[in-house]
């Protein structure tokens, strides 16, 4: 790996005593650690959490749910590199304090960017599928709840291995962030419970409606591995985000059609609101709907929670959720977690 210094060259004379680099450029939790003179920066995030099924109090689990290592490099030129290694369920204790074996490690992301211009950039490798909003920012310290909206977890593979073009272009008097991607090969480092893309093409575009809100649209057509009986799927999604003075509203809805039609079509949405209770306390509520006819599931999920921002990179969360149908793939009950960036 060729190493370059990412720090700009400071050409001032030594007798100017007030030109020292600010402490903001030094390490603090949530900033990542820069390896001097190389351009590499390492960091990550971790989540420790607890889950209890309210209908089965004996089924309680606690553990180190997520531990991700991030590494990125950016030089003076047009190249940029990023990787994320994700360790899941490293340590899980059940109600009887028995250590359960669910640990897995996954190459979540590994890609290189060539930044041709602000309007056009190229990415190659494994990256997060640019569908909706939640999936591309799904790190636990960045999300208000421990649980993840169902449609962002089950309706499409969360990662793509392939290529992408992306950038920002002027349109309709505003700026539009766009991305277009394609994949036609085996996923790198597949996590055990994911059906990765076998062949995929898609796009995502976000437009700033005003200073407070963004509207996005996603489209994808894809095949998935291990689903050869269901040859082709198409997905259309919308996402919306508004925030002001700590208040937030976010929503996504998606419809996925299958080449087999009928029972294999899926649809769903979530709407989430955040209210600041104080400088650091927040109240969260979320409603979800997910219709999966092939599983005879039409789930309505209601969530209420609170979050406390201990530091800018550390979030304590507690939530209770209830789903109208008891599906094994739906996580509801009482969940708490501590999520931190490091």
């Amino acid at each position, binding site marked *: 790996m060729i190493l370059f210094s990412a720090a700009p060259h400071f050409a001032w004379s030594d007798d100017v005593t007030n030109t020292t680099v600010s402490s903001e450029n030094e390490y603090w939790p949530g900033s990542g650690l820069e390896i001097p003179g190389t351009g590499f920066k390492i960091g990550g995030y971790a989540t420790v959490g607890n889950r209890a099924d309210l209908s089965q109090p004996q089924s309680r689990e606690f553990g180190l749910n997520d531990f991700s290592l991030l590494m990125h490099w950016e030089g003076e030129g047009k190249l940029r590199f990023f990787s994320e290694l994700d360790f899941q369920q490293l340590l899980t204790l059940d109600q009887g304090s028995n250590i359960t074996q669910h640990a897995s490690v996954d190459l979540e992301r590994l890609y290189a960017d060539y930044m041709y*211009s602000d309007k056009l950039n190229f990415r190659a490798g494994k990256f997060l599928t640019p569908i909706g909003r939640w999936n591309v920012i799904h790190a636990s310290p960045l999300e208000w709840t421990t649980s993840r909206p169902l449609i962002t977890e089950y309706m499409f593979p969360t990662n793509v291995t392939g290529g992408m073009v992306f950038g920002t272009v002027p349109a309709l008097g505003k700026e539009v962030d766009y991305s277009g991607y394609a994949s036609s090969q085996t996923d790198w480092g597949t996590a055990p419970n994911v059906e990765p893309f076998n062949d995929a093409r898609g796009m995502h575009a976000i437009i700033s409606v005003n200073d407070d809100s963004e509207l996005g649209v996603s489209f994808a057509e894809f095949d998935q591995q291990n689903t050869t009986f269901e040859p082709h799927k198409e997905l259309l999604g919308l996402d919306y985000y508004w925030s002001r003075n700590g208040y937030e509203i976010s929503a996504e809805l998606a419809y996925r059609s299958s080449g087999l039609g009928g029972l294999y079509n899926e649809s769903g949405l979530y709407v989430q609101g955040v209210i600041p209770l104080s400088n650091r306390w927040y109240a969260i509520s979320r409603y979800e709907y997910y219709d999966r006819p092939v599983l005879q599931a039409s789930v309505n999920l209601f969530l209420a929670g609170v979050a406390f921002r201990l530091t800018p990179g550390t979030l304590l969360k507690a939530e209770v959720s209830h789903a109208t149908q008891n599906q094994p793939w739906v996580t509801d009950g009482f969940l708490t977690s501590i999520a931190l960036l490091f």
Partner: protein
Amino acid sequence: MLRIYTVQSCLLASLMICPLISWATDEPIAVVAYAGHTNELKKEDLVRIFKRKKLFWQDGSRIHAVNLPVTNPLRLVFSQAVLGATPNEMAAYWNDQYFHGISPTFVLSSEEAVMRFVADTPGAIGYVSLCNIHTKIDVLLWVGAGHVLDSAPDYDCHK
């Protein structure tokens, strides 16, 4: 000179709330850059530069943006006028960017350092107090009265 005042004014009536009034200096801020990019920058570009979304000048050269420390009053004024948020309020945005491997804008400790850096580094851009400029550098935009201005404000540096 940069002056920051924090004033507590109390009204005589015991039932009335005593407001805490604070404001930053009225001296404008100059957005300065290495030579060659005059007439190229708009406010929207400035926002994108300091959010690290715009990385290149029109000629394709790399933009090197620098901030002042969060403890510097100029940083607070600039952040509110340009980004519409204080540095603390920008923390969530930079956390999101961190997840994608994008670091915040680099920070220099003083206006003097900013001026020297901008004067000597091709592609550099920063901001300093209008009346503190003593190096031959381009001024692209101005920040005054909480807004980004396209033309130089009428301000007497000698008062």
